[in-house]
């Protein structure tokens, strides 16, 4: 791996354009800007086509002989299946409104990272093969032949898009680059051109139930560590249940929460909250993944991985499903799950057993985001909270792309946050809510070999955090997304050292006064509470 340049250097983004037109400028694979190619084993496990050993930087990709035909048939097939795709191939006027909205363009200055141009990579081939004007006028009509160079360009740039949809907010026709990237990656997948950081988790999730490949006993073991820590902090021993039939609620969260901090602190937060509520719920080791890396390869794989959630809810006989903090997980759940694997008519409309609130907004898909659940608890005064315990934190809120632009969950987490912390500062308004910036590492790009790309893509997000850090002394970046929790930390360490990252329910659990708990002296991370610090200073 190449050494990451210093932040001062990376911040000097070069926006000068190549001298040659974009069609005449072949793609150059830059170290640190792409991920390793998929390993054959990962593809074989789930039955993906054309598994083989290959390296993106090699000249020879060992493509099947009829690769061009496979791609063109793949495009034709998807034009028939997706109105979004067909329409978005036709109606772009290249007004350029999307160009400087993309975090990858802002961070790299590479013109092919302008959403409009990233779409043109595939649109130009569409014109050549599927439109009359393109067939007759060729390049004059913006059409070009599908060549090996074009294919490589697709691969390079469709894996430099995190499907965050920020461009589609600004597009006058709602053209969504995420749709084009999704289909572009599906096409690449037909040739076995996946990345291992996605293909590995996908096969793990398929066989073992979660991306990280945690086996049943490991899941329990990992949770035991957290339970020990909770006991240390609160003096209470919690005993969650697993795969328990007859529980009222099935709880599904991204497996990242089970694995490494700061996700584990969020997970401790869920455990403590549910314990305090006396919630009748169960974890599942089979449906142990809320996230869905399958969605980053193909619609079909997304569906295959997602099927476990409803299947497990049915097997266990629960009434409804509660979902943990995650971003893309919630785009998949809210916009795809019911369509793919519904109807979930064996479940009941979610109803909070604590407040009696019926979640009418999840009437059909039967799954509630834990931020919605907790907001309702707080509104109904069901939690005893002591936000002073979070007084050592100055918090800002990162809206995750998918819950913002693929769901619209903006106020629920803010309501929770304002009730559990005293110091909350918003980032500049053009960088939050529906205009929020991606962490730069979504859609399975959170590998270690593409750190340059990640730091560049995360530059706009980090820049907004830096603003509140400098103006308000913000030292904590809170969010509801497992990928964010994993990726924002290195991003902060690089761009805004001193800012930590946490999930919403870590802050909830810090503030949560539990019945019978001992007097807390530390937060979940073992850091002394502000009150304790003050006492020590007095003494």
């Amino acid at each position: 791996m190449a050494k990451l340049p210093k932040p001062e250097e990376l911040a000097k983004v070069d926006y000068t354009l190549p001298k040659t037109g974009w069609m005449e400028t072949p793609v150059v694979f830059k170290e640190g800007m792409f991920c390793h190619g998929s390993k054959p084993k990962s593809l074989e496990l789930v039955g993906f086509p054309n598994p083989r050993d290959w390296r993106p930087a090699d000249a020879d990709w060992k493509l099947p002989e009829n690769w061009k035909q496979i791609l063109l048939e793949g495009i034709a097939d998807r034009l028939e299946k997706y109105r979004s795709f067909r329409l978005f191939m036709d109606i772009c006027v290249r007004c350029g409104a999307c160009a400087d909205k993309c975090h990858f363009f802002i961070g790299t200055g590479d013109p092919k990272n302008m959403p409009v141009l990233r779409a043109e990579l595939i649109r130009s081939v569409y014109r050549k093969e599927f439109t009359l004007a393109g067939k007759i006028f060729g390049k004059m009509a913006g059409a070009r032949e599908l060549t090996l160079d074009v294919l490589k360009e697709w691969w390079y740039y469709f894996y430099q898009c995190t499907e965050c949809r920020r461009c589609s907010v600004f597009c006058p026709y709602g053209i969504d680059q995420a749709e084009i990237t999704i289909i572009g990656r599906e096409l690449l997948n037909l040739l076995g051109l996946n990345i291992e950081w996605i293909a590995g988790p996908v096969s793990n999730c398929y066989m073992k139930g979660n991306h990280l490949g945690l086996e049943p006993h490991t899941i329990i073991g990992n949770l035991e560590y957290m339970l020990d820590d909770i006991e240390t902090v609160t003096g209470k021993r919690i005993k969650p249940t697993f795969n328990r039939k007859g529980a009222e609620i099935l709880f599904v969260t991204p497996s990242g929460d089970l694995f490494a901090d700061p996700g584990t602190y969020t997970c401790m937060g869920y455990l403590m909250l549910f314990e305090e509520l006396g919630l009748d719920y169960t974890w599942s080791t089979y449906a142990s993944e809320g996230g869905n890396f399958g969605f980053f390869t193909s619609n079909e794989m997304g569906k295959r991985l997602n099927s476990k959630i409803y299947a497990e809810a049915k097997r266990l006989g629960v009434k409804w499903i509660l979902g943990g903090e995650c971003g893309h997980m919630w785009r998949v759940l809210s916009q795809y799950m019911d369509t793919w694997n519904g109807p979930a008519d064996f479940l009941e409309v979610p109803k909070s057993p604590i407040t009696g609130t019926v979640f009418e907004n999840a009437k059909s898909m039967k799954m509630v985001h834990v931020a919605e659940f907790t907001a309702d608890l707080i509104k109904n005064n069901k939690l005893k909270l002591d936000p002073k315990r979070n007084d050592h934190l100055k918090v800002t809120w990162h809206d995750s792309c998918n819950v913002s632009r693929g769901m619209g969950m903006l106020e629920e987490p803010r309501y929770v946050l304002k009730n559990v912390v005293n110091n909350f500062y918003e980032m500049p308004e053009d960088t939050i809510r529906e205009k929020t910036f991606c962490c730069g590492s979504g859609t399975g790009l959170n590998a270690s070999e593409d750190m340059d790309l990640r730091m560049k893509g995360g530059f706009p997000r980090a820049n907004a955090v830096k603003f509140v850090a400098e103006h308000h002394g913000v030292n904590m970046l809170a969010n509801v997304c497992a990928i964010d929790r994993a990726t924002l930390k290195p991003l902060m360490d690089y761009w805004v050292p001193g800012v930590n990252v946490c999930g919403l329910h870590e802050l909830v659990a810090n503030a949560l006064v539990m019945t019978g708990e001992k007097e807390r002296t530390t937060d979940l991370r073992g850091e002394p509470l502000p009150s304790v610090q003050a006492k020590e200073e007095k003494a």
Partner: protein
Amino acid sequence: MKAIISFIAVIILAAIAYVGVEMLNARYLFGVVIPYLAVATFIIFMIIRILKWGSSPVPFRIPTTCGQQKSLPWIKHSKLENPSGVLGVMGRMALEVLFFRSLFRNLKTQVQDGSQLTYGEAKWLWAAGMAFHWSFLLILVRHLRFFTEQVPMAVKMAEGLDSFLQIGTPLLYVTDVVMLGAVLYLFLRRIGIPQMRYISLINDYFPLFLIFGIGTTGVLMRYFYKTDIISVKMLAMGLVSFNPSVPQGIGPMFYIHLFLICTLFAYFPFSKLVHMGGVFMSPTRVLANTSRVKRHINPWNYPVHVHTYEEYENDFRAKMKDAGLPVEKE
């Protein structure tokens, strides 16, 4: 280069009309045959285009949500930016189509002091887009006077409104100036901003020059080279009543104007200009955010291979039992 090719193409088109009418005297061809063909091409191929879009289903409910979802009753729902029903979608689309809501959000991202990103107002593109489209529409409405025996009230009102400045004889239409100005801005923006120039295709310059040509010839006819309006109206009435005839005394400027319009009509269904129809079908805008409330059906949803719980338990039964997990089969 792409701009020059587009410019030359429009000049050639104008020359074709001039030569055709003035030298070859093909007035019937340019006054009757080509207009009919152009309009027929427009209608037929636009219908085909829209049917083609319509024939591809919308498998997933994928609105881009730009505001707060409808969830708990005490949280203020953003009805227009994240619609939860038909009314909300109609409102969202009305804002989008009539006022270019999304384009209005436009920002200019800039790097200041080497490393600070700022997001400035950037409403010029929106303003020019609005100015162009609305004045184009008004001009179109004004032209209806040529196609109707009794000029409708609405058309007269449009004309009155358009000439409210009361300058010159004939009265200056504001839309003429605004439309040409807006097109000029859109062109200058395209060649002036390096990134814009980089992404632009001939497909982008050509319609601009074509429309500029149509506007210019129209203006020349109205204010400078006077055309026999009575004859033009006779021609137009003949065309719409399917009883075409070519009256004498119509100057070449009119035929150039008409031929460029015909080109626009015929070019329309094969170009990016189809965004006019497409915006009404865009899945990220025309769908309400209801996928959690009501199951959205994918017509081509098909069964897939899954790794069942049974298979999972078979893989891990011993480990599960060791860890004290309940199992289905002992």
